């Protein structure tokens, strides 16, 4: 009898202790992805985390992700628009590798961008994976739409920069290496982007200009349609028109070009990433980096003489608000600074480098999409695969942008818009807003324009420079995983 009693005690003890809860204590001082995202309201807070990933860190620590703040390195500085303050082909520093097309696969900024935007994708996937908890179908649809908007946006940027990519459409564990290192054809990536953004267009309900809205989703999808290998011009045109004619919120061009950049959330902005000055986690560093040793670098993303010439010739009243002479370089070679994102709109005194507050923690929002971009996309969509257009609708949109700039407008029924002219217009209207490189790609002009620019400056442009290298770190990790990732051509394998 007694034996049985003791055995019973042990068995009961074992039974109690093997209750799964005992070995899975929930951390009392932290939320986890498995016990948090359980209601629509909690998923909402997760969506803010996705925006936070795009927003990035203003701390220059290389282990942190900088999100959109480093985008100018991988876009504008690879175009003919900007370079570092002192362009130097011998400069092997990470910032110097972009402008002269000597990019290496170990480049920190490339890795940062790749890592940042996959973080955006990861955070969006966390939300999409938890959607089941939302019982109200409308709420679920709205959250799904916003998460997909963000995932689509991130993949759209990545696919244009890197080409074929790993396709991550759910939360994956560190051991799922095959997915992490298998590069999927870019057209399949575009399929996901189109599907995500179509869901977004249908379901997004927000109206904040710092978050997803119907107008933002439509504008982005229009751009995606224009960027496809076989562009969907008609679909893009329809979407652009919906945005241009949208009433809630009504969008209109600012009469003063200056106010586009220094009046946050103005009527022209469709989607901007929000920042607030002074706060470490919520401010941005690019405004200071673009000045003369105000940021950590001595000065990057300076306007090239090439873009200066274009702005001088075609900018109209936009020119004065787009760049300025670096006051500190007047005695030597003239250098030009971008003035669209001066920290809090301050000019920095006589030398342009003394700012009130903490310019390295600037609060200027970063505009991702604005109306004039959509107006010019409208023209582009109507022109389609042709080299010019005379359509009234195209000319009306074009003229809106031109007249605000104080430039001569086109006469309906008489004038036409040529493709090169449209590209130039986009260049001066959207200079330094990280559009130029993508525009060149979309207009199939990148090869010729950048080759000429490179030749003129003794740079080393090759056609393979149109794609960024996959970060070397990923290639190295893929080798030990058994699924070796291939590098883009032109970069060391």
């Amino acid at each position, binding site marked *: 009898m007694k034996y049985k009693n003791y055995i019973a005690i042990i068995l009961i003890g074992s039974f109690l202790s093997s209750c799964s809860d005992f070995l899975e204590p929930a951390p009392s001082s932290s939320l986890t*992805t498995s016990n948090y995202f359980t209601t629509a309201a909690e998923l909402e807070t997760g969506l*803010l985390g996705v925006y936070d990933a795009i927003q990035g860190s203003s701390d220059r620590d290389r282990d942190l992700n900088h999100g959109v703040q480093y985008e100018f390195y991988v876009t504008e500085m690879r175009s003919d628009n900007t370079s570092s303050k002192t362009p130097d082909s011998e400069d092997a520093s990470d910032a110097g590798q972009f402008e002269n097309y000597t990019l290496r696969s170990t480049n920190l900024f490339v890795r940062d961008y790749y890592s940042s935007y996959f973080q955006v994708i990861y955070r969006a996937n966390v939300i999409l994976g938890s959607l089941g908890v939302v019982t109200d179908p409308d709420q679920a649809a709205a959250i799904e739409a916003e998460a997909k908007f963000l995932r689509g946006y991130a993949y759209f940027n990545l696919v244009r920069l890197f080409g074929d990519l790993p396709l991550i459409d759910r939360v994956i*564990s560190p051991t799922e290496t095959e997915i992490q290192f298998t590069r999927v054809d870019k057209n399949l990536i575009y399929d996901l982007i189109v599907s995500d953004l179509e869901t977004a267009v249908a379901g997004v309900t927000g109206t904040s200009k710092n978050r997803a809205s119907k107008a933002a989703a439509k504008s982005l999808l229009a751009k995606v349609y224009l960027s496809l290998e076989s562009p969907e011009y008609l679909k893009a045109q329809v979407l652009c028109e919906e945005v241009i004619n949208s009433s809630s919120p009504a969008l209109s061009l600012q009469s003063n070009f200056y106010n586009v950049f220094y009046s946050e959330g103005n009527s022209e902005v469709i989607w901007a990433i929000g920042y607030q000055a002074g706060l470490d986690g919520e401010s941005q560093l690019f405004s200071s980096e673009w000045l003369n040793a105000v940021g950590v670098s001595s000065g990057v993303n300076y306007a090239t003489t090439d873009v200066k010439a274009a702005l001088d010739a075609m900018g109209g009243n936009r020119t004065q608000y787009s760049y300025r002479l670096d006051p500190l370089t007047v005695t030597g070679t003239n250098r030009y600074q971008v003035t669209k994102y001066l920290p809090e709109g301050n000019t920095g005194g006589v030398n342009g480098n003394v700012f009130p507050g903490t310019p390295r923690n600037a609060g200027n929002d970063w505009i991702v999409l604005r109306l004039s971009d959509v107006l010019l996309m409208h023209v582009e969509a109507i022109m389609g695969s042709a080299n010019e257009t005379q359509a009234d609708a195209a000319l009306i949109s074009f003229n809106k942008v031109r007249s605000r700039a104080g430039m001569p407008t086109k006469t309906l029924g008489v004038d036409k818009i040529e493709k090169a002219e449209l590209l130039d217009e986009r260049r001066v209207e959207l200079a330094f807003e990280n559009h130029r490189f993508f525009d060149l790609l979309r207009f199939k002009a990148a090869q010729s324009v950048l080759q000429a620019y490179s030749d003129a400056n003794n740079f080393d442009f090759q056609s393979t420079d149109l794609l960024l290298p996959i970060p070397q770190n990923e290639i190295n990790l893929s080798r030990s995983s058994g699924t070796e990732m291939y590098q883009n051509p032109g970069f060391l394998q």
Partner: protein
Amino acid sequence: MNLKNKLALVALLLFSIAVFAQNKTVTGVVVSATDNIPIPGVNVIVMNTTKGTTTDFDGAFKLDVKSGDALQFSYIGFVTQVVVIKDQKTLSISLKEDLATLDEVVVIGYGVQKKSHLTGAISKVTNESLDQIATSRVDDALIGQVSGVNIQATDGQAGAAPTITIRGVGSMAGDSTPLIVVDGIIVDSSFLGSLNMNNVESFEVLKDAASSSIYGSKGSNGIIMITMKSGVSGKTRVSYSTFTGVKTARKSEAYGTTTADWAQKQLDAGLELSLYTKAQLQIGTDRAWQDVFFDNGTITNHAISVRGGNDKTKFTTSLNYSNDEGVMLRDNFKKYGARIKVDSEINDKFKIGANFSPAYTERVRFSESIYNVARHQPWLPIYHTEETLRFVNQAGPYSYLQVGDYARQDHFTVFDLLGDDGINDILANIGNSSNQNPYARVNERDREDKKFQLYGSFYGQYNITEGLNFSSTLSGSFNDTKRTDYLGTLAREQASLAYMEEIVQKENYVIFDNFFNYNKSFGKSDIGATLGTSIESRNFFFSTITGTGYVNDAVKQIAGATTRTGDAFEWQKRGISYVSRINYAYDSKYLASFSMRRDGSSIFGSDYKYGNFPAASIGWNISKENFLRESSFVNNLKFRASYGVTGNDRLNTGSVDPDSQGSTSTLSSDNILIDYYPYLSLLAPSAYVDNGSIVTGFSALNVANPELKWERLIEINPGLDFGILKNKITGSIDWYRRTSDQLLLPNPISVTTGFGSALVNLGEVKNEGWELELKTKNISNEKFKWNTTLLATTNKNTLVDFADSAGQITQNGTPSVQPEWTNIEGQPISLFYGFVVDKEVPLEFRDRPYRHVGAEFGFVYVKDLNGDGVLDDEDKTVLGDPYPELIWSFTNEFSIGNFDLSFMFQGSHGAEIRNLADHYMFSNNNNVTLVANSLGETAPNQQFLINKYYTSSMVQDASYIALRNVNIGYNFSKDVISKFGITGLKIYATGQNLIYKTADNYTGWNPEAIDKASPTQYGYQLGGSPINSTVSLGLNLDF
């Protein structure tokens, strides 16, 4: 016989007992049958009564008995003898040594085993005189006592924990310390600081994996089992022990240059004194700063214990106090402890007991890194006096200085350099630092750790049937630590820099064990079996508050601050274990042991929570075979071999052990929580700006790794135990190979997961080595005894597999001095990496070489290893590693009449240390300008000049040989002391580290010192807090 007759006989017997059973006193002496030497401490018990005594130092005893009483004489290592008293008045008992003193009982974890039946590598150290070693920590006293165990004084401050490594470093997870089990209670290693050596009965060190796998997931770093003294039946014994001693620091000759030495050096070289030296000599203060900071100390210990009971209930209780004033300025360790343990047999079947040990310790720390204050110039006074103020330019920025202010090097700018008796010649920059006075930095800052620790247990044991019992034990430990660091307004000169940090840590750890134990002999077979479960729960709490804005030092509390910030969080860890073991011995000749433990840990993902830890070992007592049984040469010969698997679930990814030197509050909820919940993805607030206002959301802090599993260690260990020449020579030889794999490491992962790194199981580390223990009884007679013990251990550490991280080169050190480390497969884990020194820069090219006292040139010529004429990464090589290859100890014990004498030499060889203190102590950083020589030539081949800390210059030999202990004692003979009612009195004098010899090229204070760093960047120090030598007097009194 018929019934009547029987009754008559009984009556007669009763009568005769009544007649003959008269009380009388017997006296006697117990000696060893082998050598006729008296044995003190033999238990003499009148069987079936509670009466008893023990023999004194002369082996003598006295006891009131009746005729017909049976006296039982028992002593560990001897065959118990029973003598029935008839009419003897004196007894002469000769105890036979139990074959080879082997039937000592050894604690093996959840049970005990006869030593002769052991099949694993377990070393036992009995506390015979360990409590006479004048140290405040029990682990310090274990140095050199056990082979395979490396106890390194990595921090020489009073009360600081040494680093204990058993059979090499096998984990990358940061925690390579062994498990500590006190009286069966698992405690955190910090309890080694609160135990009192006077209460310790013995230590058992479970070294091989087969032995330690009974603790499964906790066993991979080896186990130190500590058995505390229990109550005894018979007369209640009171013991009082005390010692008091003086401590001195081992100073560094290299770091002791005075201004006078420096002047002499210039004169010896036939030079005129430099202007700087002339000026420095005038100030009138001249001593190296180590003389100020190593102010020596004292150590005092008092312990009183009472042990007693009867054959049913036994108890022990004790109180102790020790005060260790360390050898450094303001380092101090005070300990107050108490203990009570009661065991009681309620009836034949049922036994219960309880055990409680609370302790309170107060540790005052030396508040700065020693290199940072000792590097100041020898001529710098602590305070300004009328005399020293004369050298302060009254027209300069320091004209406000007054007598009694702290002096700073850059205060001194006017001297008499022209010999005109006027102190008016300006000479700036005679010093190498503009920092606040080093004495102020230490003295105006208070760092204290106050710790309350308690461990205890309740148990009940029920004998179900002969040989089978069931026991249930509820045990636990509680740890409450408060650390404060008050940096006063004068410590940095600016009141605005004053701050205080207060950290509170609490931990409670509860374990519930339920075990069946079975021990039985069937004919020639002995079987022992253990089966049980263990459930544990640990709860942790951490909080930190920082106060700033102190106006003065009136209230040295957080309450005195004007601004306070803080953080607090808690976390949990749980475990479930199923334990089984079978020991089998056939004819005491053929031995085998099998065990299996299954552990579940809350650390891992749902499908990987459990790990299995099997072990098997076998033994063959060859000396029991017929062909050796009669051998007069070989008395004992046993071969054993073991195989076992253990694990590790202790992670240390970014959290830092706050007990370690220098660290304060690097613990954050971010990293500590990931360490305890790595299979979960934790969320952190994640804010965004929407329409100009901040909105807070949440995003994941880490990637969940649901497949994370145990770090695993597999070990094989063949060994041989032997005893020859009537066991005059005994010992053992072991060889081991321990391989740890599936190491828990934070490793880079694809960023497509959303994160750049994750905790993964990766890599493999191997440790291999030999262990030798040799004990000889050189001379053994009544007057004179001489025993010798030699222990030696070799270990070779190899990084077998390090996946993506193999060959990585990383930097570590102080923020400004960052030499390189590398981790190469096939070599030890952590390797010093850099350039090889070629030669020093000739004096003629150095700018003002005699400006700072003791200055060396910061740069050095290094070798162009590949001979390509340029200095680059190709010229770097491995410069050494911090793992000793051989550690040994050599002990001699003598006993001459009432005197005894023992001494132990101990040494360590083959390790290197990267001593970065050289960079600071030799002012390397301030004297790196080259000039042209008298011929107008500048230094040649400057492309091969590089800062010394990147080179072999600061990689030094960490070997040492020390006279660890000397002990001379005198035992008063019982005749003298018994008049005072005293049963034992011993006085003794001890010395620790009276000789401590380091390698010639070692410049620092302590070659054993190592600063806390990740295992991949291990092995640097900044001079180290110094080795202590102690001389003390002590007394043990029993009554």
